């Protein structure tokens, strides 16, 4: 069976994409396929796709060795993404898993490695106002997810060499039709009336429409000559007050936007408490969902984070094709189609 798509850019180059259960991973694989890359994916669940796919965890050394066989390049998205959970779980998937994948890739002679990361690896809790990509901080990043990703990113970039080129692409808050991470949580909570705005939703936040994030990741691979050894934050370059973003998402989904606000300091404090209680309750099997507020989430919603995109756009020779408002229109169309 042919696994390379109709395009010619990829020229049949074989690329492994890990973590394609999610919206972004799936979009990256589809984009590579469309461009004529030979695509193989690795994810926990079975998928129905026109390319080769393997089922399993990157944390399993045998799976990793099989997945990298005959591959020219890897886009590594597989990760445990959650606001809560035990540190060991993050270590197993995000750090050990990445380590095993890199080791297997180097054994198999894979040349290029795109590590999909997150700006949260360098976010120490204060506002980010037009900054570039700071250094990843495994010590001080906020929360288990960000810390484990920071460690993995540092590890991946440390391996960068002429024979194994590594770059880290950090898309910031990816969203789009079918997104379960941000959009559906916002919509569900808004529908349930459980979504306050913090400080009136004033914090200016940059996000990334999924198509733009996927394109930037693929550009990371294609521009590896320039991107290797670097971490690059990717966004739409259109910061908006978080309140307006949430209102936009709610409007697209046809639900009422949040109408009440709580002070950011209160939410940050309450978030810490709720997070601890939820984790304790989860360990006893009392709750199975994500807590309504965590300190990390409260910080994300009450401090600005938007970035200087000039360096990223120059290195990747890329600009976002879908504007924020176009993205919201696509989201609205998606919800209308769902009825």
């Amino acid at each position: 069976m042919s696994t390379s798509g109709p395009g010619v850019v990829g020229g049949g180059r074989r690329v492994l994409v890990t973590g394609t259960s999610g919206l972004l991973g799936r979009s990256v694989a589809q984009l590579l396929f469309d461009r004529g890359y030979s695509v193989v994916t690795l994810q926990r669940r079975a998928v129905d796709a026109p390319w080769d796919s393997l089922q399993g965890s990157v944390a399993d050394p045998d799976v990793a060795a099989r997945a990298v066989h005959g591959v020219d390049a890897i886009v590594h998205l597989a990760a445990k993404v959650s606001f809560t959970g035990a540190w060991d779980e993050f270590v197993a998937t995000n750090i050990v898993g990445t380590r095993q994948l890199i080791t297997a890739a180097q054994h198999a002679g894979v040349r290029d490695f795109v590590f999909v990361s997150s700006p949260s690896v360098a976010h120490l809790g204060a506002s980010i106002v037009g900054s570039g990509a700071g250094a990843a901080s495994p010590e001080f990043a906020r929360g288990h997810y960000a810390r484990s990703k920071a460690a993995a990113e540092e590890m991946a970039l440390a391996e960068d060499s002429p024979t194994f080129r590594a770059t880290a692409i950090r898309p910031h808050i990816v969203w789009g039709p079918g997104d379960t991470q941000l959009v559906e949580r916002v919509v569900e909570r808004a529908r349930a009336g459980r979504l306050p705005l913090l400080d009136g939703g004033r914090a200016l936040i940059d996000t990334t429409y999924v198509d733009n994030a996927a394109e930037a990741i693929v550009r990371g691979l294609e521009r590896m000559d320039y991107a290797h050894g670097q971490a690059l934050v990717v966004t739409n370059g259109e910061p908006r007050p978080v309140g307006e973003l949430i209102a936009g998402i709610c409007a697209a989904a046809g639900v009422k936007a949040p109408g009440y606000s709580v002070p950011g300091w209160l939410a940050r404090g309450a978030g810490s408490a709720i997070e601890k209680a939820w984790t304790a309750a989860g360990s006893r099997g009392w709750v199975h969902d994500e807590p309504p507020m965590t300190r990390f989430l409260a910080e994300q919603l009450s401090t600005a984070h938007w970035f200087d995109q000039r360096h990223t756009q120059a290195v990747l020779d890329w600009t976002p094709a879908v504007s924020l408002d176009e993205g919201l229109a696509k989201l609205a169309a998606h919800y209308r189609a769902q009825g």
Partner: protein
Amino acid sequence: MVAAALPVTELPEPWPGVRAGWRRTLSVPSTAPVDSPGTSRQWHFLDNADDVAATGMEPVGTLLCVHGNPTWSYLWRTLLAGATSPAAVAAGGPWRVIAVDQLDMGFSERTGTFRRLEDRITDLGDLTDALGLAGPVVSVGHDWGGIISLGWATRHRDQLAGVVLTNTAVHPGGFTLPPALKLALHPAVHPWGTKTSPAFLSVTHGLAQPALSEDVRAAFMAPYRSAARRDGVGNFVADIPAGEGHPSWPALDAVSSGIRTLDVPAFMLWGPKDPVFSDRYLRDLLTRLPHADVHRFEGASHLVQEDRDIATPTFAWLAQNVPSRSQAHRGALADAAPGHAGDAGAFTPMLAQLDARRAETSAAVVDMLPNGSTKKLSWAELARDVDDLAAGLRELGVTAGDRVSLLVPPGINLTTLIYACLRLGAIIVVADAGLGTRGMSRAIKGAGPDYLIGIEKALLGARLYNWPGVKIAAEDFTPATATARKTVLNVAATIPQLMANGRVERLAGTRPGFSTADPETDAAVLFTSGSTGPAKGVVYTHRRLAAMRDTLAATYSLDAGTALVAGFAPFALLGPALGATTVTPDMDVTAPRTLTAAALANAAAAINATVVFASPAALVNVVATAAQLAPGQQKALAGVELLLSAGAPLAEQLLHQVQTLAPNAALHTPYGMTEALPVTDIDLAGIGAAGVGNGVCVGLPVSGAQVAIAPIDADGQVIPTPTFDASVTGEILVSAAHVKERYDRLWITQQRSTSIPGWHRSGDIGHLDAQGRLWVEGRMEHILCTPAGVKTPVAAEQAVELVPSVARAAVVGIGPAGTQVAVAIVETNPAPKRSGLASPALAAEVRAAALSVDMPLAAVLVIDSMPTDVRHNSKIDRAKLSRWAGRMLAGEKAGRP
């Protein structure tokens, strides 16, 4: 002698800003009177000799820096660091900087002696002898170190290449000690405050604006941690000569009179908020070193070195004024380049028309009184009064070069005062009430007048706010309370009194003639509106003031014999110089919007006016009160042929309304600034023809003026290559004979404004169009440096103001230059309940409007009222707004803008 670098083991701790390798110790033979012969003293000082050696260049010279009490050489660390910075090296070459710790101070020896001023000046000479300092030396001093450094300067004239002073004093000759020092010297306070406790140190460190960081404070405290180490601090204070009987008086007197004969360049960097070494000491120093360049850092205090960057301006000043040999050569070449426009050519004194018409009985100046009657002075009477008053002022002691602050409302009295001062060659200081009380207070203190003439209210302000200058009352006091008031207000004379004295001289035939002022000497200090920071003093020479008059006359064909209504202050003072009959309407001049249509018409009727000068705020009220006009008043306004609205742009619609009131007038709105009035001009038809564009079209340059643009790079920096090309947006440059001479006591500001040779950098931003018309797009600090390039806010603001519920809009950039995003802040109608994010619906409308002129917005905020300037109530302080929006959108406590 080679100084020993301090062994590393003796470095107790790293101090912020001090580089390893600066610290030196040296044993120096003492010749101070207090020491017995053969004594040597152990000195500690900071020396950047290694840094200079690392540049591989010879130093231009040495800065010898002397701290005061209770600081130490640490105070000068930014000069040590800046002396070998790339900028300093490129500008003039590296400087060696030696900052000493005086004996008994800092980390120098605790001698167990009581060292007086004479000892300390001798000590410094002993040290420089021991160091074998060769080549030119610039002395640098602060606080009481200023006197010691100047003492060294007067004894080393052959080596001395310049003098730099920061908040210091050389105080004899009628000066009293500042109250804070008197307290420190009080026997009950002194030993406890200076030695037993570290109170004096803490209080001094606490003067910093903004506060010192903990580690810097600790560094200042480091050498003075125990009472035993603070002997020098206490002795220093006790050695302040409080009177002629004090042992150090003769030494102090020798210094303060000795510096009068220093002929080297001098630079004074001053923090005016200093409660001890206040502006009065700066003024005293300027009488002794009148050629000094001065920069007053508004808002900075005693520790000006900590409050502001003094290193950058100091090395820039040194490069210009104390150049190395190669620099001196280049400087000579630059001086040979074509000079600033207006340095030569014909000059007609400001008093020429008054003198020529001194026999005429027609009206020269007219005041409209509140009761509807008029007060008139003929040309003959005005000329006579001006001379009488000038003679009276001269008798009081006012001489050429003295600064006279005039706090008198426009009208006959002010006009007489202005021309009397010009007659004497005294410099008029005109700080108008439009600056607000605080702004006016800062302006007056900054200009430092020798005399202050004011109405009673102003004299009360002078008393309350401690404004400098000999006080003169503009009017006589009513006899019942005259004596009491004169005492309370500390008034030396009244204007009627002075005029009477002058009259006696005239009638007795004993009056000496008046000499004509040198055209290149200072004539006036005017003030900017202060919409973006404190008001700046702007100095005009007689030549430049006369050029302003000639430019107005040529641009608007204002012949002698013109009759004009003076409703706009800066131009109003030019009436008699133009030979024009001037009438001042009945209004509260502190509030332009109190001018009614009737008051304007009455004024016009009184002299059959053909010309009206007015401010936009005044015209808004004139239009609003037009319904009250009687037929006769309407007729008076119909006689107006020219109406100027100056000060801020005026909506075209409002101009049309003005036109219906004055149907036969050509309506002009000149563009200009306190530093150049006017620069361009446009009339109502021209505004219509220009249509809508990016910015406000202000027309073509006025007679004799040139306008160019300095383009801007992606980070908002000006490229110093003027262009006349159409559609290039950049800083507006002006060249004209009537451009200001300089900023007053703002050396750094002056340098910036003249950094493009031959041009005044206006700080405004705009572009020229294909017809050569200028479009103003705002202030330089209003530009947005976005990833898509440099943008100006005006077009987007105009587009947003078309949204129906928006009353007023400002568009500002937030974030770092180069990657800023745009935010619109709008005043809505009705006003919002509280400031914050705009509703989604309003945000969408505003976004769409801004996007139509290519200004994508990150956010839309509503605000209850914009921060604006006091004088015009129209200039929005976008810098303030930007900081406020930045706080809002970072989720921080935003407070008020």
